[in-house]
């Protein structure tokens, strides 16, 4: 660190401390429940990912088909004798895989473009604007559908499809604060002092828009899970035999009159997941808002 930077860092605005953030998050009701629900669902998914489900989600056991909830099968079995609970857990793992990858891609690309287009002038902003306008011209679900159907069906292409839809949202969400931060004294000082642009962007600008990015990441996770499920409901998601929550609901639709439990587990898990993520996003937004500092 140069002496210039050291002296100047003392004047820089400080991002919120992590420990206080956690406490604030847990203090609000939505934050608390968001963390709990999301943790529970994440736990289920992780268990499935390491293979720790009660039964193998894929193998069929025709002898035990169409059984209601019992001690052996907590949420019953489907028409192939597969344990619904285990399948739901595996479905969560699938959703997680798709959603996390989708959100990482869109967050990284979207934030980068957003920062670049906010920080540098019209040379960058023009083309970025044009591109985001084009993507914004599609209703989101439709775009994801279209993208997912044109490529070979596997979980990665579904993730990419969802990512592409969300990139412009990250661009828009990060561009605005960057535009205003650009005029902030500490950034202007940095430029005048001759700091290389890269450094300014990554070490000084990025930490200050992190809160916004974090909240958006949580909210896009929730949309990603929802969309991935909708896609798999329509048969356009991860191909079988990998269990997916949406396709489970689809199959359950025809069975629900005689076997209602087939829809309960995947439906409940899905709702819990999305609710948890939404609450978490709300809680994070409140916790990260500097105006709420005085409340703790």
């Amino acid at each position, binding site marked *: 660190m140069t002496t210039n930077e050291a002296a100047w860092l003392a004047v820089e605005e400080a991002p919120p401390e992590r420990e206080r953030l956690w406490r604030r998050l847990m203090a609000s*009701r939505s934050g608390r429940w968001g963390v709990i629900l999301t943790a529970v669902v994440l736990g289920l998914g992780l268990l499935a990912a390491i293979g720790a489900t009660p039964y193998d989600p894929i193998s069929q056991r025709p002898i035990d088909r169409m059984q209601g909830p019992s001690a052996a099968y907590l949420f019953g079995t489907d028409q192939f004798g597969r344990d619904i609970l285990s399948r739901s857990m595996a479905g969560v793992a699938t959703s997680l895989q798709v959603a996390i990858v989708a959100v990482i891609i869109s967050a990284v690309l979207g934030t980068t473009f957003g920062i670049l287009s906010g920080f540098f002038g019209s040379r960058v902003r023009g083309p970025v604007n*044009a*591109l985001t*306008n*084009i993507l914004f*011209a*599609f*209703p*989101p*679900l*439709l*775009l994801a*559908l*279209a*993208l997912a*159907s*044109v*490529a*070979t069906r596997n979980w990665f292409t579904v993730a990419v499809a969802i990512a592409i839809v969300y990139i412009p949202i990250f661009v828009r969400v990060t561009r605005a604060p960057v535009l205003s931060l650009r005029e902030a004294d500490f950034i202007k000082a940095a430029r005048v002092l001759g700091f290389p642009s890269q450094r300014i962007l990554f070490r000084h600008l990025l930490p200050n828009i992190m809160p916004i990015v974090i909240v958006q990441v949580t909210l896009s996770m*929730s949309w990603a899970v*929802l969309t991935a*499920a*909708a896609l798999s*409901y*329509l048969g356009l998601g991860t191909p079988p035999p990998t269990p997916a929550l*949406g396709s489970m*609901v*689809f199959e*359950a*639709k025809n069975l*629900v*009159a005689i076997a209602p439990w087939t*829809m309960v587990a995947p*439906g409940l898990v*899905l*709702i819990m997941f*999305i*609710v948890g993520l*939404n*609450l978490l996003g709300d809680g994070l937004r409140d916790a990260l808002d500097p105006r709420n500092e005085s409340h703790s």
Partner: protein
Amino acid sequence: MITSKRIARTVAEATVTLLGVAVLVFVMLRVLPGDQITASLGIEAGMMTEAQLDALRAYYGIDQPLVVQFLGWLTEVASGNLGFSQRTGQSVLEMTASSLPVTLELAILATLLGVLLGVPLGMLSASRPNSRRDGGAQLIGLAALSIPSFLLGALLLTLLARILRYNPNAMGFARPLEDLGLNLQQMMLPAIVLGFALAAPIMRTTRSAILEVKSQDFVRTAIGKGVSPLRVQVRHVLHNSLVPIVTMTGIQFGYLLGGAVVVEQIFSVPGIGRQFLIGMQQKEYAVVQSTVLVIALLFLIVNLLTDLLYRIIDPRVRTG
């Protein structure tokens, strides 16, 4: 003043965007290995010789370079020819003319329901923030946001169909002019499902808009004049909250045009979303291309209209 210069600029921007959309759609559909011919012929394609397939390709013009194909398609669209379905032979224009009004009807009904549910809930929430009333309303909003439409739709459909033996959607779709009663019955469930989902963002926007306006000085001025509480709520608070509410409603309405796909599928409503889906499933590129273009165009128009509406509500923007 909405100058003609502004209108021209907005139209120009929209045209460029639409062009970009066309390019994107066109390119997307040709990413898949195996072309339209092999896809639509299915098994038969395997029985043909390469020469025969080439002849077919030449006939349909898909052996030309992409750019040529694209420009060719654009000129066709500009002259009103949106292509044909290879299977049914029907022109896409005809198909769209039949499916688009269906989706519009659904979107309008759903938006109405969403607003009727969302705005009052939002006002209720905002009247006493952080109270139990607020918490309850927000819970409903959260539920609406988090229950996927396909889940709710599937649930409601099977519940009514299997248990109450009521399934108007099982019969052929009725047009409003032919049989309004049946049409409305068929639209009811899908509109409820979509409207419920829409109510969530509208409620949120209403709540935050009202909270923000409530604390502004001019509300205090109105109370200080002795104006009745009802009038303060409506003429001062609600009126000034309208802009974000209307904007959000417009956006949500736009989303419905394409986003109703899943619900249309579940309830067998022959709307434009379903047209797109079936086109995708059967690899009918001509249908898909033009359908997406139409949807994108509509979406842009809805956004423009929302923008216009918001300028009418807020005179401050007119001079901008």
